């Protein structure tokens, strides 16, 4: 796969990735040379430098790798605090940061979670850049 003719329908671009995510499909780049999973997909593999990156659907299930609770949010998210954030290791090997729809006290390293997707709220649209306005938001839910 070459990146010379990338356009916004290509899932190695952010618009392409979020279009698929809005339909519930989590796409990852998978390096054809070293099998590294890249979230979101992109033209090159950071692990080995290869530009032979395939795009493949990724499992939305995974386990909490690390987590915390945000008490001092950026101004745009002040109304949500405190909220839980985690790094999740997905079943297919990629790792992704996101909010967790659970209280901090109810989460532990190793917990099973599933990635869900929702439309941005009015408040989120308010602080979005023009091209981000319709991008969905991903949330991890405890299973």
């Amino acid at each position, binding site marked *: 796969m070459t990146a010379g003719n990338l356009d916004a329908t290509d899932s190695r671009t*952010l618009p392409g*990735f*979020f279009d698929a995510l809005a339909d519930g499909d989590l796409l990852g780049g998978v390096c054809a040379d070293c099998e590294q999973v*890249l*979230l*979101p997909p992109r033209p090159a593999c*950071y692990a080995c430098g290869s530009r032979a990156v395939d795009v493949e659907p990724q499992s939305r299930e995974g386990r909490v*790798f*690390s*987590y*915390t*609770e*945000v*008490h*001092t*949010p*950026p*101004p*745009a*998210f*002040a109304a*949500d605090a405190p*909220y839980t*954030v*985690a*790094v*999740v290791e997905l079943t297919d090997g*990629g*790792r*992704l*940061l*996101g*909010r967790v729809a659970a209280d*901090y006290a109810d989460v532990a*390293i190793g917990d099973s979670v599933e990635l869900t997707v929702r439309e941005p709220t009015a408040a*989120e649209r308010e602080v979005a850049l023009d091209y*981000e306005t319709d*991008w969905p*938001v*991903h949330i991890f839910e405890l299973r």
Partner: protein
Amino acid sequence: MPEPVIASVGASSLGRTDLPGRDLFSVALAEAFDGLPDPAELVEAMYVGNQSESYEHQIMYGTLLAEWAGLRHVPAERVEGCAAAGALALRHAVKDVRNGEHEAVLACGVEKMTSAGTSGATDALSAAFDRALEQRSGITAPSQYALLAKRYLHETDATERDLAEIAVKNHANAARNPRAQFPKEIDVATVLESAPIAPPLKLYDCAPVGDGAAVVLVTTAELAADLDCPQVRIAGTGASANNIAVAERDMTDIAGARIAAETAYEEAGIDAAAVDIAEVHDAFTVCEALLAEAAGFAPAGTGYQSYQAPAERADGWTDVQLSPSGGLKARGHPIGATGLLQALEAYEQLTGGAGDRAVEGAETALLLNEGGVADAVTVGHVLTTAEAP
């Protein structure tokens, strides 16, 4: 190849100040050039580390500070790499002197962080994270480092009390540093009982928001000798970028910092055991533990013992003393200036200017300055007054 040296240093006061960035720089510059010819008679190029235009709505910091230094028509540029901007500026100066292009280069850093309050600083710093997935999840600098800390406590024997002890040690060092933002001792209970910011990190695990500027004059050894300046050799420099998203990195082996340190050691012809003092990027207490391991001072999983006396630490630890200035935690962390404040501390330690916080017999220092979360970018420098090997 000319070997660059630090010939002089200066800094503004640190913390909440009533001076804008350019004026903080003027204070730092005046200290650095006290007793020297004017900058216009010496300086041939200039680099300015500066994190964000959102504090003062000001870019073009290279041009602005060159003008304020009385330097028109020199090459001057702002260097950006979040909190590593200062060491990136120093690295550019080192390369210019090494390659023979210039004999005297000014490496500067400045940040006016208090202009928009804590929420303004939180917002400005969040721009260092991946916009698409991290920023939109509401992650912050403390919560990013909390993810590292949670994982570090999970994988090692370290406890929240150990992290608190690192803060206590760095405050004790800062209490002997007249430049420090927080020159006062604290106890472990103060840290453990402080407000939750992002568990396991509490308020006293976090470096403060503050203003500041620092200036480091990098010259050839010959010029420093002509100027009769105490000089410290910049014997090695290394730098490494890593993934912008911490989720995609190894969260306890800080690979970018390891590579930056090893590259700097190799250039200097030393190994980690030769380092007497280290100023590492302790933006949060856990960083000092992680960086002690990445720099080769401590075996994996034991870096949290950095607060202990060398004889009490685990086997395999070196005798290095970490953060004699008080570190980012207590000396202060005006983002773009931090890497140069680290160099300033090493210069004072190695030239007999560190007063009663001097580490006895110190000859060689490692600096590790990071930007983004942990090793999104790391810059390492080896500074020494020892003879070249």
